[in-house]
């Protein structure tokens, strides 16, 4: 049985784990996530020594390397504050796979303890902060792509759309096969590029034919994949391509 998750009351402080993809390619999404939390009256601690959760090596089968990198993150969160991760995929890695990765080792109980404090950003905003958003943006039709790890590994299919539905001027459009993977899958996109390309092509078509003017996602892997495909099609002269961004940036932009 999937245990029912009981959420804690809103804390004074949280840790923020920015993820490597956001650190390198989409830092604005990270900063906007931090601002959303600060606006809820929470002090956000950003451990300066954070790097990567270790997932790329983990899913590629390099578990010793993944463990070494994960171990370096474990010590960054000494106080009992929740750890907020603006990505379902890195969040899923830390919540689900850290305990597996360190099972039977001296770090086992620490990994379990850290895993228990991991919250995905939209999950935390909805279930712990109970945010109320005031939309200041223009009317827009938006498609949400929830990442597979947020949806299935973390069980968070509803939190992203829930936040968007608070934005009164935003119409959330319905895509065909919304729960289907966009084809990113980390190194999958490199090892099986043609299959991945067929998947992301279908995803961009689904978003477009849903009549979306914009798409948001809570995972930068999906954003890089779907956004990169839209941009490529635009460069190739195909009309009507849709722009996208991380949900944290979209929420911050429309409510600040």
């Amino acid at each position, binding site marked *: 049985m999937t245990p029912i998750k009981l959420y804690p009351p809103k804390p004074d402080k949280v840790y923020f784990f920015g993820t490597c993809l956001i650190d390198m390619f989409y830092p604005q999404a990270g900063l906007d996530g931090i601002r959303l939390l600060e606006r809820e009256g929470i002090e956000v601690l950003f451990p300066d020594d954070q790097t990567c959760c270790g997932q790329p090596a983990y899913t590629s089968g390099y578990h010793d390397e993944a463990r070494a990198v994960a171990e370096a993150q474990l010590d960054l969160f000494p106080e009992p504050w929740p750890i907020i991760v603006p990505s379902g995929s890195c969040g899923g890695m830390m919540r689900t796979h850290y305990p597996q990765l360190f099972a039977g080792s001296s770090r086992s109980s620490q990994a379990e303890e850290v895993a228990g404090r991991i919250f995905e950003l939209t999950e935390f905003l909805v279930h712990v902060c109970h945010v109320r958003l005031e939309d200041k943006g223009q009317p827009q039709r938006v498609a949400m792509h929830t990442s597979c790890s947020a949806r299935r590994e973390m069980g968070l299919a509803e939190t992203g759309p829930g936040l968007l539905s608070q934005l009164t001027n935003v119409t959330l459009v319905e895509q065909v096969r919304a729960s289907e993977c966009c084809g990113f899958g980390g190194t999958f996109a490199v090892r099986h590029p043609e*299959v991945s390309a067929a998947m992301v092509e279908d995803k961009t078509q689904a978003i477009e034919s849903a009549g979306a003017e914009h798409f948001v996602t809570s995972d930068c892997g999906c954003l890089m994949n779907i956004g990169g495909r839209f941009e490529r099609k635009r460069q190739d002269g195909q009309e009507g391509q849709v722009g996208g961004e991380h949900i944290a940036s979209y929420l911050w932009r429309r409510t600040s």
Partner: protein
Amino acid sequence: MNVQTFTPQAFHRQAHDALGNPQIRSNFRRAMDGLMAKRRDAFGDWDIETLRDLGANIRLRALAKLPDLLEQLEANCQANGIRVHWAEDGEQACRIIRELCEARGARHVIKGKSMVSEEMHLNDHLEAAGIEALESDLGEYLVQLNEQTPSHIIMPAIHLNTEEISDVMHDRTGTERTIDVDYLTAAARAQLRERFMAADVGISGVNFAVAETGTLCLVENEGNGRMTTTVPPVHIAVTGIEKVVEHLRDVPPLYALLTRSATGQHVTTYFNMISGPRKPGERDGPEEVHLVLVDNGRSSIYQDNELLDTLRCIRCGACMNHCPVYTRVGGHTYGTTYPGPIGSILMPHLMGLEATKDLPSASSLCGACGEVCPVKIPIPDLLVRLRKEAVGEGRGNVEGAGVKRDRKEVLAWKGWQWLATHPGAWRAGAGVAGKFRFLSPSRLGPWTDYRTAPKPAATSLHAMVKQHRRKLEREDEK
């Protein structure tokens, strides 16, 4: 129709061909969309999670007691008059079945659907001995007529649409070219009916073998299973050793899960419970019933306490139906008896990792397979586990472990590890990447064949957070 041989070694080329074949793409997409919708609707009358937990527990309990249950199954089958044979591998199983056929002087064998018989290439083996084996499941029959292999474990001919089926039947059996499905089905039925009557031996699979009663359960929709197991004088059931369940009461939940997960049915048209040959005074049924229990690599999977979860599988095919990769490349692309997610975790055991090294990576780990699996096999975790075996130092439990170990890739991950465990270097690296972002390549291998390349941000999140802190502090001072 073209006869094509598929191998797991050629996964990439076969995927390329399938992706470029609009007929394959639309046949699978349409069929899988339909199957997913049917499954969703069929579980409407159950608390699906409770039922999946029950299914998983039944299978786990059976596996935990596997050696004992197999002995119990053998004893109870023998008591029922079912003769039990053990085969260590496919070859031995083929030999046992051939010898049973030869002992009866059999020339014509009719087969119900059995994936294990596909796994051991039974038809080829019998044919080489001059025994004709004809498939009687409609999909299997079409695939056999077309000299192909099944592209799906439940719906073997799902890669063919009605026009293609009409062509195959016209070319091979002389039926009219038509898309009238009723006509085609009736024609196949008439063709098969004659063959049932003429068959010397019937060979079927088994869905559940019940240890406590020695009963073989067979789930089907066409009645071909009932015919195969009752009309010919000899019935040979062949199955993997993992198909055993402990109690008769374990069957209804597994059956409910199987039919709903596979085809979205609440019940199938036929559910056969075979408990022995014809008894004196009975009017029908075979004179002999045999059960061939095949290991073929399963007991080696059983030795590994993670990978053994693979053996929970009840062969519903839901993981294929929901897999975005399978849906796009189709079953033949995998080049293995069992395609799709379950195939990618099972075939490395049956064929070794050398031959199947591209299968565990052929998944985005989206988790759809694990989410729908009726017995909760953690398929994504096992895919990762096999990736680990493939790139490891060759000490794993799977034959061919270490086959994908590549010195350059190991070095790359070691380099990544060093950077990600030296935060100062990491931050400096991000700074350099940002400063020289104009130098970042616009082509990044296959990624940029379809997408633009991501550009490093001018300022990393680390640096942005520092600026943000300073700003907040200044505001505080005011």
